[in-house]
């Protein structure tokens, strides 16, 4: 299957007073229609910056310094997003790439009704008549299972619950029928029951709208529930990528292993919960060699000197480690 969005060698740096902090250090992945890719990692590993880089919305002083993001077009060859002028990129945002943010509390403008905000999402790209827009808005609100959309249309964000707000954000992201949906921690601010429903909603809409989804999260439960493939990020690189089932069953990178072990399981006799040793180093002091080696239980001499090249350890299972687990 042809990928809808293909990312390769993406590097995004933050330059602060002549120091360069490399937040994303060469990331490759691709998104396919009707599939969800999970991007997981601890705080500060570069997940969100990667997502924002795809939209070319990296906040200053961040800058995309290298790489390519190619969007498949139905007619003609793929479109390189990183070299588009800003005015053309604006037409891609919202129409080809939709995005959902973490905080449904602050992602809606407090002074407009939710109907007006969904309507604005449509009107940025399509000059439709008043009535047609309103019908489409109510249709979208119904698609995201917002109860009673006709009267909710006139509610302000502060009158909705967190889950309802996130539904509205999804409706806004879907307003122009994008090919790719980027969801940055869409359920982190919600409680667990609402979380499951929102994830289910995203999956259903993905199938209905035939979208590719990038799901950014730090929650392995979310990954298990909602993705087909996973990419694990550590310090700005994807250290392991595999089909979700395979990754959970047979992780090859010691870091992935550590993450999986740090999830508590009911009914398991264990005195202490295993955690990944140490803390994430700051971006200004990325260790030489394999960047994970100071925290790695399997690190050897070579890990201190050389950064590992990506290798295949199974079908569609790629890992960057000198001593992968079997």
């Amino acid at each position, binding site marked *: 299957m042809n990928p809808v969005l293909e990312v390769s060698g993406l590097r995004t740096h933050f330059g602060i007073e002549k120091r360069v902090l490399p937040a994303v250090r060469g990331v490759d992945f691709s998104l396919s229609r009707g599939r969800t890719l999970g991007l997981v990692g601890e705080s500060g590993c570069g997940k969100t910056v990667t997502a924002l880089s795809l939209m070319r919305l990296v906040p200053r002083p961040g800058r995309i310094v290298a790489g390519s993001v190619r969007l498949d077009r139905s007619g003609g060859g793929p479109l390189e997003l990183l070299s588009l002028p800003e005015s053309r990129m604006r037409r891609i945002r919202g129409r080809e790439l939709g995005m959902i943010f973490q905080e449904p509390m*602050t992602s809606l403008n*407090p002074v407009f009704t939710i109907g007006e905000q969904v309507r604005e999402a449509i009107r940025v790209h399509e000059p439709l008549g008043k009535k047609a827009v309103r019908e489409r808005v109510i249709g979208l609100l119904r698609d995201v299972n917002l109860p009673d959309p006709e009267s909710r249309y*006139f509610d302000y964000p502060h009158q909705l619950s967190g889950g309802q707000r996130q539904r509205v954000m999804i409706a806004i992201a879907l307003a122009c029928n994008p090919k790719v949906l980027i969801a940055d921690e869409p359920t982190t601010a919600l409680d667990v029951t609402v979380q499951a429903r929102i994830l289910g909603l995203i999956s259903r809409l993905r199938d209905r709208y035939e979208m590719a989804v990038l799901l950014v999260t730090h929650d392995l439960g979310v990954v298990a529930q909602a993705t087909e493939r996973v990419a694990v990020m550590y310090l700005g690189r994807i250290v392991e990528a595999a089909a979700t089932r395979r990754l959970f069953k047979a992780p090859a990178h010691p870091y992935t292993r550590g993450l999986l072990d740090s999830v508590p399981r009911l009914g398991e006799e264990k005195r202490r919960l295993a955690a990944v040793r140490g803390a994430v180093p700051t971006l200004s002091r990325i260790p030489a060699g394999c960047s994970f080696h100071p925290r790695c239980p399997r690190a050897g001499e070579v890990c201190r000197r050389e950064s590992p090249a990506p290798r295949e350890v199974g079908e569609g299972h790629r890992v960057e480690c000198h001593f992968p687990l079997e």
Partner: protein
Amino acid sequence: MTAPEKSRNYWLSAGREVLRRPRAAVSLAVILFYLAVALWGFTGWKTPDWETENFEMAYRPPSRAHPFGTDIYGRDVLAKTVYGTRVAVSVALTASVLALVIGLVLGLLAGYFGGWIDDLITWLFSTLQSIPYILLILAFAFVLQDRTFTLFGAEFRIRGINAVSLALGLTGWVGLCRLIRGEAIKHREREYVLAARALGSSPGRLIVRQILPNVVHLAVITFSLGFVSYIHAEVILSFLGLGVKHVPSWGVMIDDAKLELFRGVWWQLAAATAAIFFISLTLHIFGDAVRDGLDPRLRGERR
């Protein structure tokens, strides 16, 4: 599927919200009354005569023929007050509209874009602000006095009262600009602005449709407070003999009263003061109500 036809527009519902408050509605009525009095002179209808001098009638206390009494030349104080309203409102309106537009536009540009645009605008208003206010207004008024300029092919000559209003407007935008700049910086970093950018909104659209509605209540309250302060400024300048000349204004009336009070002639001072008092009070109340009405989170609350 039937969508309700009644449009619940942001501005309409804000307006309805404001008028639900009795004090605000009464204030609006008073403000409209002042505006009507100010516009009276432009309708061509007969206005009260303030020019006829009658020395036999000098310093008459309030009576049926002259409800507010007469001044040293025997002119009707009520007529002078009415004419003064026209002067005060036109000065304040010109000045506050000018200040509002300049302050809002520059504040939004500086706050949203930052960088050298921000530096330039900040430098501009810091410089203006470092000059003592009265001095600055006088300097502007003197420079603008008796200039002619052409606008859309028509030639205009700036005279007395116009110079005062332009000077007030060209110097009065600083406070609003600072305020809006700060708010724009705050809102620029909010997630909903990022979300709107992720939808493909252009910078212009972001400023007008996302940030402006979140800061406009500040502009409204500054407008109504500014209106009051420009009325006061006109009074002060006229009192100092630097503003309006040859026609009545509230400031000129108060200036006259300096020589009247020790004779027990209080009505001219009282008339001008009352006129200033009621417009100040109602503008404050109304501005406050509008501010509350524009913020959906405060709607429906009564204090």
